[in-house]
């Protein structure tokens, strides 16, 4: 391919990916460089395409649960929740109070696991090996809790229409608390090598900048928008589940750079821990965890459509779901924050970026490729 560019005489074309060094690697970035400066870049996806949305159109409602969690590996529960909530809304199912709290717990646990993983990923992308070692271990402790609660470590398949599949195991709150303390104990060390380190600051401050003007144009959400000073959070703006009854802060920063986005994540870990503690404390002790639902083999849902949203660690995630009176969905559109961030926003951010800053920038957004090519 020849590239017309009047401003430079020589341009190098480079493919970054698709290999898999982390959440940015199972897609490919095609960049054009002069020297080590990126002139422009294009995001290419498709390497993970499994056709989730289309598969759901051919499955009975309940059979979509084992699929949707695969739309985001680090944070499957948001997908489970959104599918459940949209089908419940269209099918007229109300979930019991206990299920509301258990769902909130699981959503926040998955946010927390995802946030610590992203902090590790961000540090790793700048060459700090110790931090990912720590944070992936911390994530594994959270996965232990998931295993205990849901029966699965990575893909939980815990929520179903009507509620959740199991109640809390005995002693779960104490063991969860132990994990939360482990995370809190680690945070100061993470700070020392990253946020307090002059080297790391040098590397991340003023790099990977976003422009507030893009917000409306692209529909940016999550840490990316909060790093530009907009206090937008679905949990606060469009409250769902038990979030209205929980005390937490929406963290903002103004840098709009890698540092600001990572810093937000760092503080959101604290908020997330706070939320999990509250949920475990305020959750009703008794009551059913699921409401009865129609026969899953023959359940038909009348014609209807809805958009349900939730705050994932990457930003607003939403399911636009259409039913047509049959036993399958007519259409599900999965709105993942990564779609906006990974194409429109990232491609603008690439311009003028140093090639060495490409991965730290992508991880700081971050993108989750399966969410972009669902």
């Amino acid at each position, binding site marked *: 391919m020849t590239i017309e560019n009047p401003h430079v005489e020589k341009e190098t074309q480079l493919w970054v990916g698709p290999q898999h060094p982390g959440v940015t690697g199972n897609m490919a970035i095609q960049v054009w460089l002069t020297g080590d400066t990126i002139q422009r870049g294009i995001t290419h996806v498709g390497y993970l395409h499994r056709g989730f949305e289309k598969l759901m159109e051919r499955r009975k409602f309940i059979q979509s649960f084992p699929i949707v969690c695969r739309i985001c590996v680090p944070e499957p529960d948001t997908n489970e929740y959104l599918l459940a909530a949209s089908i419940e809304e269209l099918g007229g199912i109300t979930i019991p109070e206990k299920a509301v709290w258990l769902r909130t717990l699981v959503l926040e646990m998955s946010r927390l696991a995802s946030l610590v993983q992203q902090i590790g990923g961000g540090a790793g992308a700048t060459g700090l090996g110790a931090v990912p070692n720590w944070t992936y271990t911390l994530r594994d402790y959270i996965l*232990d809790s998931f295993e205990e609660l849901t029966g699965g470590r990575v893909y939980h398949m815990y929520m179903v229409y009507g509620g959740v599949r199991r109640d809390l195991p005995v002693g779960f709150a104490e063991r969860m608390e132990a994990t939360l303390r482990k995370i809190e104990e680690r945070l100061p060390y993470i700070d020392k090598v990253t946020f307090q380190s002059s080297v790391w600051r040098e590397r991340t401050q003023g790099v990977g900048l976003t422009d507030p003007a893009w917000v409306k144009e692209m529909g940016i959400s999550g840490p990316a928008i909060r790093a530009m000073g907009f206090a937008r959070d679905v949990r606060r703006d469009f409250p769902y589940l038990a979030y209205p009854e929980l005390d937490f802060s929406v963290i903002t920063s103004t840098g709009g750079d890698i540092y600001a986005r990572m810093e937000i994540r760092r503080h959101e870990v604290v908020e997330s821990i706070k939320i999990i503690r509250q949920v475990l404390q305020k959750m009703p002790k008794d009551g059913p965890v699921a409401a009865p639902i129609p026969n899953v083999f023959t359940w038909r849902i009348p014609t209807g459509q809805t958009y349900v949203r939730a705050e994932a660690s990457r930003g607003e995630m939403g399911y636009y779901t259409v039913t047509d009176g049959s036993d399958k969905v007519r259409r599900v559109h999965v709105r993942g924050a990564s779609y906006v961030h990974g194409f429109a926003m990232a491609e603008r951010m690439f311009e003028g970026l140093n090639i060495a800053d490409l991965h730290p920038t992508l991880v700081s957004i971050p993108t989750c490729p399966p969410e972009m090519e669902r």
Partner: protein
Amino acid sequence: MSLKNALAPFGIWARALARPYTIPVEDIMRAPADRYRGWHTNDAEACIGCGSCSDICQNAAIDMVVNRDATKGDTGLRPMVDYGRCCWCALCVDVCPSGSLGLSSEYTWVDKDPEVFRYVPGVDKKPWDDDTKGWHGGEWDLINHDRVPMSMLPGETRGQTWAEVVLGYSEEEAQREAARCLECGICTAACPAHMHIPEYIGAIRDGNYEQAVNLIYETNPMPEMCGKVCTRRCEDVCAHAKQGEPVAIRWLKRFATERFDDLREVIKADVAPIGVGKRVAVIGGGPSGITVAYYLAIRGFEVNLYEALPTLGGATFFGIPKYRFPMPSLEKQVDMLRGAGVKLHVNSPVDAALFEELRSTHDAVFIGAGLMRGKAMRVEGEDAPGVVNALTFLLEHHLRNNTDSDKVSKEPVVLPGMKVAVVGGGNTAIDAARVSLRLGASEVVISYRRRKEDMPADWEEIEDAEHENIQIDVQAIPLRIEQTPDGRLDLIWGPAEMVADKPGARPKPVLVEGVENHLVVDRIIGAIGQGPNLRWLSPEAQGTIADKWGWIKVNEDGMTGMPGVFAGGDLVNETADAISAIADGLRVVQGIPRWLGLQ
């Protein structure tokens, strides 16, 4: 940039002295969580092979494979799991109606041979087969095992009325109940007539009632009868029955047929007129005869049906009380026969001479004469006045009340205020007891030699009888009947103890010697079974088609030893229920054209 920031990263050197943060390998090999979803387990004996697990698996990881011989209620299939496809979501466990399938909590399984990762849990033995941890049914199920309750007349008042006890489902209730069906089809195999049960239940669920009755009429010409009084083997084997209540298949069939006042407008018999020009005589207007007559008539045969009684229906007319199966329901089914062009000859008992005439004037003859002889109790004093057979009692009662027959006295056997004992434990015994109650009996006692759980009567019938304050004495063996000086009857009975019999058989009642109990009543009704009576045939004909007790033997087409003479119903089929008789009729509907070379 401050010095503090420059030095900050070195702060983590403090960790060099701390315990390693990564997890030692022995921690990784820790025990899995209690509800971890690992490799499958299955209780192969409790599994019924319904295939719900295979249906729900969106990865097609589960195949149903032949493991054993199919029986009623067990397809003989067992799930085989392919772990190249399984994603351990455990939906298969959550929908397993028998509760047999589970996931063990086993984390790891390493093998060099990839083939071993396809196995039949519970059949191919694995170390984790008995793991009680993991993910198992019971704690929480995805399917609803509770039946939509049926509304009935209240038990206290219905003893005084002949009105139908069961009120039927509303449309909403029927659709809700129909929606419970898992569509496994285990019922179809258990139904003697192999009715298209999941299909018509699906049609009811979707509100396609015309489609439902058409599906029903493909294999059953008396669905309103079966919808009300069928012995419903289908429900016994329903997958839901393993852990809860079976789908109310019978009530749903009833609902579908009751939607239409005249089924002739609805049923579209779409069959080839293969029998044009052929004549078939049907002897007996019970379920088997009606089946043969209806399905041959719609295939173009000229059918003559001979019934000794004034009304068609056979045992469903004279045996089954009208509070269970009212006359209008029966007439609706007879109308279908008329609509199909069957020539009905009622009040026309067939004798030896007419039988021979029918043989010579028809291409085939079907005998569905039923069991018209009530068995004796074989106790001393049985011939005392006031002791009647249930069959005679019910027959006379129904002729008296539902026909203008002059062959029965106008005086009922049971009069108001009498105390009645019924000996027996089948549906006939329950019917005789409940009819007696409605005739005004002050007290009705059923006396049965085995335990209540051994009673052959339908469990709902037993419950209904108890709700009507009918007393059931169990483990009571009748010894003799004596007349008391004041003209009453004394049923003397001895208690029985249950002794284990052959494996698989019900325990035997054995008389406890030396104890005599007295039950003083006004009427005793013996309801201990019926037998064949072929005396209306010539001795030669009897010898050709029947054994010495009068039971008829037939081949796989339903044909007797006499060429061109077919038989079915209770005379052939010892199960002696209506749906088996219909199944016999269906066999003959295939058999007669085959014998005539029409197929």
